[in-house]
């Protein structure tokens, strides 16, 4: 048996990322420690190449490996987002890992392997391939979470992430095995056909669906499967936290949407109510528990749970049985838009946290930000912008993202859900703006010792500038991104 060349051509970006990941792992031992940053730049270069290839193929829909993989505009959109986030992570890590004294080459290899897993997830059209992609992503992230291996907190984060992550993969896999039993195949198209013939009340099908909801619920961190998030986000190195909060959530959302809209689309009147409950619970718990947090990484973890809740509003709209296809497509595109907006603002906030650590501040307790505006005006200003955007105040990206999600909900006749979400956004303003208040309204504590100046690096400047530009430009000119998401939605049958 030979592999058709066309299939390999179709997955060139995945091949590049996986090959460069292995290359980095091989080159690491023979690279002098003072030259480790070369590996980072090599990784970024490979991402730029992949970005170009994926952009040039955005409009085509190609299937490869007898329909195991599908390369459509939907997958292309998520891949572009993942490349940007991964490149920003690597640039942030360049500065941050040195401060933490864990600047090792294999870090970049693991980040790229994780990215390869995410890319496989977003373009998989088969449950086995989705499972393999998820595992490649997760296994790399378990190791990355424990990368500060001399710090007990980081090891703990790694251990907890591993236990709960593999637990959820096990549940997901059991669901997949049941779906295979029902459909006789793991292809999403075959499962969709089986849903049509078996009807909506097949108990095996419903049980499998619930197991998939649990499995994916852990990966996208929605209530009640969110328990791991605050611990893991707090303990992991900040650059890894940013990567997990943004990239792994985006990839999991992408695969989850494809499975539920394409594979289990016929069951949507069953899963719709389930997601509605999960969505409201996530919004309430994420926003309310974030109020009492004193550690900024923990606060951002609960904020990321809440943001998954906002994105789920779009999923609920896309799964509404009564709505017409146009409304459902609006729901799906609002999820895609929301996660792109979320990526820039959350990444920016974590980057500022990492930057302040560099400045000699411990920089993890919200109290450490006291009087930051006087000590580090620029860092405080950036944090202000990201917090304002996370709270959803115009003219930032966070506002536009929320606007589209709420608009989709209102269009689908879920006005009450939009009202609940808006009220909880007002709650969220409290904890985001508290950070701003601490930075701007309080005098710096003289005994805490003023940080003379931040030692910046070009890479770090680039990261902060990109996140800042993303948040402001997407807030002022969202139209290009909106048209991309609208043209990249999954086709509804």
């Amino acid at each position, binding site marked *: 048996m030979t592999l058709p060349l066309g299939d390999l051509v179709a997955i060139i970006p995945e091949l590049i990322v996986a090959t460069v990941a292995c290359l980095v792992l091989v080159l690491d031992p023979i690279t002098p420690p003072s030259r480790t940053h070369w590996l980072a730049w090599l990784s970024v270069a490979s991402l730029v190449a992949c970005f170009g290839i994926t952009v040039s193929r955005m409009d085509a829909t190609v299937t490869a490996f007898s329909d195991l993989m599908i390369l459509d505009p939907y997958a292309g959109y998520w891949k572009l987002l993942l490349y940007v986030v991964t490149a920003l992570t690597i640039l942030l890590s360049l500065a941050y890992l040195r401060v933490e004294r864990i600047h090792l080459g294999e870090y970049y290899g693991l980040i790229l392997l994780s990215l390869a897993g995410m890319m496989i997830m977003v373009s998989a059209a088969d449950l*086995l391939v989705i*499972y*393999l992609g998820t*595992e490649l992503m997760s*296994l790399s992230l*378990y*190791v990355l979470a*424990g990368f500060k*291996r*001399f710090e*007990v*907190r980081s*090891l*703990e*984060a*790694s*251990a*907890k992430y*591993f*236990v709960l992550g*593999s*637990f959820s*993969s*096990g*549940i997901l*896999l*059991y669901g*997949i*095995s*049941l779906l*295979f*039993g029902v459909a*006789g*195949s*793991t292809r999403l198209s075959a499962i969709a056909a089986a849903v049509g013939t078996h009807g909506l009340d097949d108990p095996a099908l419903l049980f499998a669906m619930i197991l998939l909801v649990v499995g994916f619920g852990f990966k996208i961190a929605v209530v009640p499967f969110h*328990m791991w998030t*605050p*611990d893991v986000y*707090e*303990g992991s190195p900040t650059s890894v936290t940013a990567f997990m909060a943004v990239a792994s959530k985006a990839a999991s959302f992408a695969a989850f949407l494809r499975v539920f809209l394409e594979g289990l689309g016929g069951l949507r009147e069953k899963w719709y109510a389930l997601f509605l409950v999960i969505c409201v619970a996530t919004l309430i718990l994420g926003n309310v528990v974030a109020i009492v947090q004193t550690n900024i990484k923990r606060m951002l973890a609960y904020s990321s749970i809440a943001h998954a809740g906002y994105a789920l509003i779009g999923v609920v709209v896309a799964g509404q049985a009564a709505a017409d296809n146009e409304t459902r497509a609006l729901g799906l595109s609002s999820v895609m838009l929301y996660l792109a907006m979320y990526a820039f603002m959350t990444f920016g906030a974590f980057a500022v946290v990492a930057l302040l650590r560099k400045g000699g501040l411990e920089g993890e307790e919200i109290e450490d930000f006291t009087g930051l505006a006087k000590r580090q005006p620029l860092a405080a200003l950036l944090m202000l912008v990201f917090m304002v955007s996370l709270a959803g105040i115009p003219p930032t990206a966070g506002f536009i993202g929320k606007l589209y999600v709420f608009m989709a909900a209102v269009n689908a006749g879920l006005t009450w859900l939009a009202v609940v979400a808006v009220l909880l956004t007002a709650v969220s303003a409290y904890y985001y703006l508290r950070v701003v208040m601490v930075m701007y309204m309080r005098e710096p504590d003289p005994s805490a010792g003023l940080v003379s100046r931040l030692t910046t690096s070009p890479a770090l400047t680039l990261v902060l500038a990109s996140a800042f530009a993303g948040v402001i430009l997407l807030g002022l000119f969202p139209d290009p991104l909106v048209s991309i998401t609208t043209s990249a939605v999954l086709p509804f049958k």
Partner: protein
Amino acid sequence: MVPLSAYVAVSAVLFVTGLIGVLIRRNFIIVLMAIEIMLNAANVNLVAFSHYLESMTGQIVALFVIAIAAGEAAVGLAIIIVVFRGKISTNVDEINLLKW
């Protein structure tokens, strides 16, 4: 011939055993074993369905799952070793610096 329902029943028992094991056992290594049991429950299902449906797909998926389980065990044991070095304990309850 053993009916399909017998295999599915065994698989369900294994899955529930693994599920309960992860939730109630506190030793990290036992938790890892419970997770492996969950994966193998899925394997039993896959192979049984594969035989019953006369489709090879299930057996191939099971082979992939075995490989993944091996990778997972390797990463899990590596994490246990570094945690053990740092804390001299493999008890999940003592991994409690962060609020659970």
